[in-house]
């Protein structure tokens, strides 16, 4: 019961409602955690229930697969799950925050054994084992008189290969049983929902007894012979890119890169018998370029200048001006700072003063970086290794720290997962709890281990965070670690230690003292040189400009998620790196490639190119690209002629934060097609000050409607549209409400395609 509430106030029904209504307590999204928890348990089908249960279990399997694909194999393949179902809070990945509490309340005999019972049993056996160890050790000390026994973590980790159980003999037994592969019991005749994955099927289970998993590094190191090529190829619907793409490629001129992109697109159109759409009209393309590159619609004068330019060069000239022109430098930097801040820390993060991260601080840092055209590898180095304070104007301000602050939690697991996913396109959160995932290595055979996750996590062990109680300034800096080792617990209860090891298997100095080395600095250097970084950046920018990435989702490389255009992706990524990882180069190439010039209208020859129906995107037409809330705001701002240099960031953050959603899903907002979901209704989104200013302006209604059309659509209303809007305004008692509805209707129109945002990653 709620201990905070005194008895005399107690009215749980009303109290619960008040806490929710007044905004303190919000319902959680339990689905991912439940499905993950289910994935870790064998599913018992009661005798006689096979007929009715068969389809049920298949549905459940599908749901589990969808929730955490790396947890699932096929029905005949052992799930990489331990016998003891739920790991402790330290190593439980991705589930709801309170999952460990619920785990303790599991009841025995329901298929999921009660962790409470397990733990209690283990603890008793553990005590007995510890006593036994103590006696044996004492005898040993007496027998080997004078010989010292070092029980430091180093020694513990060094024994028996990579590591040794730290919890005694009980742990050893648990390990041997815990690592035993479990099988989902399937009723006769029930086929698993997913096709067999030869990579996983042929993978021997990790041997916890040896403490030395056979395949151990996240990015490609293997100690087992590779599978035959046919086995790996069969699992790939398309040719997956070799994920060890060549780095250090020859630098090609921009024209050659653009020609290479076009060739890759044409090859895919030819292979899939697609006829690309016509070239987009100049007006449509101009709006597209402004929205994509600057995040706002063009102004009247900009339309006019574009139309006045020579037809054959006007598009290239406009891209050149938008990307490299001094007059657009601030807007370009601000737009891309907003985009990357949303991508890296999510829209809801950092918008409230109670949070550690400062969105304004992060955007300010990114704005400055993009304005200076700083290379992406340098930016990534800084966001991983940064020290300083988070808020602009504070002493030793360094906005780069906000990346780690936004993903901070007590044990650094959030930062580890976010770093690998957002910067390298690898989803590791699931291996926080368990071994074995088929990795995206070219041999399709490499496994990821829980140890590898924690070795990566150890790089964040020196992070120390303080919040000044008076000024509320948050400071992130490296500090000496209390222990050099990072401890984690396997799902079977065995405790292990991990030290920082770079992906690929390169260990670094184990000392946790800052004077002996800054771990994050070492990691940052490695990430900045990784071939995954340019590929991830390219894919994200591609998705931003074209509506869909070359993989879906865009930050999950691997044979399970092959790219639609692997050669194209490899070429652009390697050229991006070869050109120095400058965002402006990449944006320029993509804005001038063939796919960006195509009309949104499908032709008879490319009706099959319909990613909005769940098909793979082939970019034979330009997909209606959703505008972003920031675009709506910035367009409105210039229409209201209230734009200020540098932006009203506080106002801006308040506006953008409104697009956060409840029921979980805090990060990585992604777009959904316009016809699936609409913007929240205006009564759920407060009016922005900019809109307010326009509504209050001393303009006649027709002029206000023209302004709204210009802001939302980048054009003036037609006569029919204007008449219709004026008719709506005619009898309105509260014209402001009608104008506000017109604004949101325009944003929701097919032409604009502003979409609801939600995070579903």
């Amino acid at each position, binding site marked *: 019961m709620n201990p905070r509430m005194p008895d005399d106030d107690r009215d*749980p029904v*009303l109290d619960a409602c008040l806490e929710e209504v007044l905004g303190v307590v919000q*319902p959680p999204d*339990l689905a991912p955690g439940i499905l993950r928890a289910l994935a870790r348990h064998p599913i*018992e*089908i009661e005798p006689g229930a096979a007929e009715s249960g068969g*389809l049920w279990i298949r549905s459940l399997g599908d749901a589990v697969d969808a929730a955490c694909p790396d947890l699932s194999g096929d029905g005949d393949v052992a799930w990489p799950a331990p016998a003891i179902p739920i790991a402790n809070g330290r190593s439980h990945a991705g589930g709801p925050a309170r999952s460990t*509490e619920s785990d303790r309340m599991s009841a025995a005999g*329901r298929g999921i054994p009660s962790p409470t019972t397990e733990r209690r049993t283990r603890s008793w056996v553990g005590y007995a084992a510890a006593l036994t160890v103590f006696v044996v050790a004492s005898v040993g000390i007496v027998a080997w008189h004078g010989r010292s026994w070092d029980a430091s973590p180093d020694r513990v980790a060094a024994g028996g290969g990579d590591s040794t159980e730290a919890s005694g003999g009980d742990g050893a037994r648990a390990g041997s049983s815990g690592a035993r592969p479990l099988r989902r019991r399937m009723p006769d005749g029930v086929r698993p929902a997913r096709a067999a994955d030869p990579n996983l099927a042929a993978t021997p289970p990790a041997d916890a007894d040896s403490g030395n998993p056979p395949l151990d590094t996240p990015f490609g190191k293997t100690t087992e012979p590779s599978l035959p090529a046919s086995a790996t190829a069969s699992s790939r619907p398309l040719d997956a890119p070799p994920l060890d793409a060549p780095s250090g490629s020859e630098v090609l001129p921009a024209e050659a890169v653009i020609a290479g992109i076009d060739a890759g697109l044409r090859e895919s159109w030819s292979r899939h018998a697609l006829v690309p759409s016509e070239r987009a009209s100049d007006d449509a393309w101009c709006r597209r370029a402004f929205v994509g590159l600057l995040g706002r619609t063009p102004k009247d004068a900009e339309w006019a200048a574009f139309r006045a330019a020579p037809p054959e060069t006007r598009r290239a000239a406009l891209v050149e001006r938008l990307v490299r022109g001094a007059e657009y430098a601030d807007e370009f930097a601000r737009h891309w700072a907003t985009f990357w801040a949303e991508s890296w820390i999510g829209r809801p993060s950092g918008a409230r003063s109670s949070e550690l991260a400062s969105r304004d601080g992060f955007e300010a840092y990114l704005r400055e970086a993009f304005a200076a055209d700083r290379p992406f590898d340098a930016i990534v180095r800084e966001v991983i290794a940064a020290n300083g304070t988070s808020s602009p104007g504070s002493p030793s301000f360094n906005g780069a720290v906000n990346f780690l602050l936004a993903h901070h939690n007590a044990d650094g697991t959030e930062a580890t997962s976010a770093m690998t996913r957002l910067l390298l396109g690898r989803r590791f959160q699931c291996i926080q709890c368990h071994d074995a995932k088929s990795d995206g290595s070219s041999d399709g055979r490499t496994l990821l281990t829980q140890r590898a996750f924690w070795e990566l996590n150890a790089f964040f062990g020196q992070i120390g965070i303080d919040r000044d109680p008076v000024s509320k300034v948050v400071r992130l800096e490296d500090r000496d670690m209390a222990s050099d080792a990072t401890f984690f617990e396997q799902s079977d209860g065995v405790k292990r230690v991990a030290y920082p090891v770079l992906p690929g298997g390169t260990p670094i100095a184990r000392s946790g003292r800052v004077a002996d080395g800054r771990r994050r600095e070492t990691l940052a250097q490695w990430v900045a040189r990784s071939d995954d970084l340019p590929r991830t950046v390219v894919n994200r920018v591609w998705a931003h400009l074209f509506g869909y990435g070359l993989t879906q989702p865009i930050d999950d490389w691997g044979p399970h998620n092959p790219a639609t255009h692997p050669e194209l992706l490899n070429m652009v990524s390697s050229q991006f790196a070869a050109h120095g990882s400058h965002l402006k180069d990449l944006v320029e190439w993509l804005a001038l490639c063939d796919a960006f010039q195509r009309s949104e209208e499908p032709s008879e020859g490319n009706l099959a190119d319909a990613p909005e129906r769940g098909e793979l995107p082939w970019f034979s037409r330009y997909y209606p690209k959703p505008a972003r809330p920031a675009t709506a705001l910035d367009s409105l701002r210039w229409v209201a002629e209230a734009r200020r240099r540098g932006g009203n960031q506080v106002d801006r953050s308040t506006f953008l934060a409104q697009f956060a959603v409840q029921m979980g899903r805090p990060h990585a907002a992604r777009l959904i097609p316009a016809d699936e979901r609409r913007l929240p209704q205006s009564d759920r989104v407060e009016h922005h000050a900019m809109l307010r200013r326009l509504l209050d302006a001393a303009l006649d209604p027709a002029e206000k409607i023209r302004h709204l059309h210009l802001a939302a659509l980048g054009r003036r209303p037609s006569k029919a549209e204007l008449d219709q809007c004026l008719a709506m305004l005619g009898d309105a008692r509260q014209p402001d409400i009608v104008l506000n509805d017109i604004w949101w209707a325009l944003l929701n129109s097919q032409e604009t395609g502003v979409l609801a945002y939600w995070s579903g990653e």
Partner: protein
Amino acid sequence: MVEMKPAGLPSTMGFDPLKLIQDHQLGLWRYLRALGCAREVADDLAQETFLIVLQRPFQDYSEVATRAYLRKVAYNLLVTQQRRAGRVVAVENIEQYERDWNRWAGDGDGEDALRALRGCLKVLGPRALHALKMRFEERRSRQEIADALQMTEHGAKNLMQRAKKKLRDCVEGKISESADA
């Protein structure tokens, strides 16, 4: 006498565990909160309930039946958890809370009750609303509330009790109205 027909057995073909969770998690979580569970406990018990239900073949007869079944499992889990924790909790109180919530939420997920409550907050005076916000939004102690409102602690307690009574009456009135309508 209305003839009771057994509900048709829906095909398990259409069963979607994810949909089951998404459809019912909100109502179940609010139900547990209304029984007096702290947020963390409600999270845990709701998750545990779905785990138990999904561990065996599940027939989704109807939304109402499923909701009732989930509530029953959750209720039993709560009582079991309280017993395990060694707490003496009067079951009558929990039953009373359950009856209250059933009256407020009916067969829904409680959204109507919350909507009614939002409307009812407008009938409170500014001091009472301020006191409740400090209590439920800012988690301030009664003494802090009293200090902020420049009254005694006893006065703050009375103020909040009266406000809550007013809110409860208002919500129940709105719910009765909508039921009558």
